[in-house]
């Protein structure tokens, strides 16, 4: 798994993450209205994906690890979606 290219790869990944951080801060200077949060979350998710795949070696892991790594994202989606549905559809507060 480790070879002479590994460290060079890590360096490139780090550069990519720095570039994405600049984009994160840069994009926040503009007002996209209701798209502000989706854009910020999209960039953050790309960064998180890069960290997971390359720094946490998810790209070398087996299917079982992938399930463990991705199902909490689904649970998190359920938690936020159902809480929001509850809060914003209440007729009586």
């Amino acid at each position, binding site marked *: 798994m480790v070879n002479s290219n*590994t460290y060079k790869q*890590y360096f490139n990944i*780090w550069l990519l993450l720095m570039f994405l951080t600049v984009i994160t801060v840069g994009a*926040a200077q503009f007002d996209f209205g209701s798209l502000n949060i989706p854009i910020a979350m999209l960039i953050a998710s790309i960064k998180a994906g890069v*960290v997971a795949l*390359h720094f946490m070696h998810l790209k070398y*892991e087996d299917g*079982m690890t992938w399930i463990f790594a991705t199902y909490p994202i689904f649970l998190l989606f359920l938690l936020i979606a159902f809480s929001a549905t509850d809060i914003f559809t209440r007729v009586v507060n």
Partner: protein
Amino acid sequence: MPFMKFVKSLALPSEMLPPIIEEESHFDPETEHSAAKLGMWLFLATELLLFGGLFAAYAIFRAKYPEMFLEGSASLDVVLGTVNTVILIFSSYTVAIAVSAIQENRIRLVKWMLWITIICAAIFAVNKYFEYSYKISNGITPGTDIFYSIYYAATGVHMLHVFIGMAVLGVLLKKVNEGRYHKGNFTAIEIGGLYWHLVDLIWIYLFPLLYLA
């Protein structure tokens, strides 16, 4: 004694007995390694859901009180937040190097990388300390409004993880110094590294949500 002959014939010859297992938990080191990693990923899943409650609270209150969140996040120091983001991402990079270096027996490199990671974590903590004390001295506390309540809760729980991560990395560094880890035994460094990456992952989301909203 035909009866004794019969009893003896019931006993299994030694080569048919199950082997005596000397390893404590697993049959072979490779299984143990992947099982430990899988366990760590499961633990990270529970960690994500621990922060999940805070993310859910953020989503709902932000939708309910958008002005409060815009005003609150505008009062946070974007420069300090960006510096801390850069520091955490760099420390993730150094931990990744340490995890690979131990698999090549490059012990000196591992020690350097663990040291740099711990120092990055300490700088992050110092920045956060200045940030908190500046806010509190201006009378902004978790009780000010819901934005600051979520801000202090989320960054506080994250800070706790930074401290635990520093402790984990410190123990790993101590054991590396004692020569306990090498090419054939690096599982602890790998899963300790995974923990540190999670601290980075959470911050990647907290930074835009709190500072740049």
